């Protein structure tokens, strides 16, 4: 029993010393971490890349369970859903006619004005493999990284609209800063009057609209899309709808659902700063040819 008597106080003493040391180290790290040094970024990248495959494996059963629940829900409401889709289809067919007419009109105007049409945007698809894991952070990891051509600043969308943008990349995984995060700022316009604003996350479900001109008449139900200002995110990506909270504040309900993120697209957008003058589209070229023929005659 003799060794135990001396071991106990010694253990307690070393435990206490180690606790004080760790407290100091943790406080120091908290202060040093603010400096955002290269070492921390590198460590973060390494840990993220190591954890991403594990999280991907772990997220598969979660996704499968969710699909199962959704499928069960769909079976339960299949008749109602069918009715709703029929009605929607009829409505959309009318819209399709309208859209085709408008498309032809826009193409003609663009041709007449020789508008520099944005080059088509390429994208890379990936899966969201992790949740943010903390109450003050709204970021997720996606399983595509530098090897797939993903880099910081690129916009991330899903089938509903803008999800966020890439803030860090590793070789195989990247971190997406969601619209609701405290650090998220996205230049947007509020349609239909095209009021410019900055969509700012504040750690709540609904981001706010900052720098909105005082005379702008924005009301609940207005559509918010990206403005493309700054050249980082392409213009016109749907973001959400303006809503009015119970305290009268205007906020934005995003189209993409934070709780249901699964497959996303990372847009490999390049700001068209050096676009060559384009040839007029064929639509006009045909006219030009016939005009030149007429002139020759």
């Amino acid at each position, binding site marked *: 029993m003799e060794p135990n008597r001396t071991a106990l106080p010694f253990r307690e003493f070393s435990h206490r010393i180690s*606790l004080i040391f760790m407290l100091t180290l943790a406080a120091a790290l908290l202060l040093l971490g603010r400096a955002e040094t290269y070492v921390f970024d590198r460590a973060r990248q390494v840990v993220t890349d190591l954890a991403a495959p594990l999280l991907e494996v772990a997220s598969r059963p979660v996704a499968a369970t969710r699909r199962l629940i959704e499928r069960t829900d769909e079976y339960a409401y299949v008749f109602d859903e069918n009715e709703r889709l029929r009605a929607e289809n009829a409505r959309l067919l009318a819209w399709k006619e309208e859209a085709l007419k408008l498309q032809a009109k826009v193409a003609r105007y663009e041709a007449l004005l020789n508008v520099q049409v944005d080059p088509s945007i390429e994208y890379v698809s990936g899966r969201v493999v992790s*949740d943010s894991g903390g109450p003050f952070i709204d970021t997720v990891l996606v399983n595509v990284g530098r090897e797939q051509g993903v880099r910081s600043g690129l916009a991330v969308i899903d089938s509903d609209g803008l999800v966020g943008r890439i803030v860090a990349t590793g070789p195989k995984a990247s971190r997406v800063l969601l619209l609701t995060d405290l650090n998220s700022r996205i230049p947007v316009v509020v349609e239909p009057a095209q009021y410019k604003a900055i969509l700012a996350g504040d750690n709540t479900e609904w981001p706010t609209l900052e720098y909105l001109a005082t005379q702008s008449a924005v009301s609940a139900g207005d559509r918010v899309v990206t403005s493309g200002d700054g050249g980082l995110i392409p213009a016109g990506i749907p973001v959400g709808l303006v809503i009015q909270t119970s305290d009268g504040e205007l906020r934005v309900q995003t189209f993409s659902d934070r709780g249901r993120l699964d497959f996303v697209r990372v847009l490999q957008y390049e700001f068209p700063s050096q676009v060559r003058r384009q040839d007029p589209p064929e639509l006009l070229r045909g006219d030009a040819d016939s005009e030149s023929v007429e002139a020759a005659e």
Partner: protein
Amino acid sequence: MAKLEPYSPTPAARAGRVVLTVMPFVIGIICVLLSFVPFGRIFGSALVPAFPLMAIYYWAIVRPEMFPPLAVFTVGVLFDLLSGGEIGLWGFVYVVTYAVIVPQRVIVVNAPFSAFWIGFALAAAFAGALAWIVVSIIHGMLVPPASVIKHMAVTVAVFPLFVMLFGRIERRVLQRG
């Protein structure tokens, strides 16, 4: 105070001790990884409990000698590295919470489960409040606290499940040790 096992030089006992020392630490790291698995997606919610806090509280009360401050710090920093938030935030919050819990353990160590659970609710409230204060100072504004309140409420709600799990693991390993 939990009884310490007398030191035994036999290799088998030594191996058992290594397992005992490493096990809570491994559980802590698994808890960090679990925090990033998007369980909330099943229910269409982004809420995930603070799994590492449950592990830290459990081992700090039941066997603090097996979950040293170094393990708490490592678990917290690993969480910070993975979460993409401020480096050191949860490392700091968890170490301070641990330092507050350990001297109080005599109150709940042999008390009924309800006291253990209430103790955890207090620890979660403390950790949440401390994290909220630190984040608010860092951002220079009062960060909306709703998300941290929900996060800690979910954590307290699922805690009994994990106590059962941790207890089972502890007994299993202790029997072998």
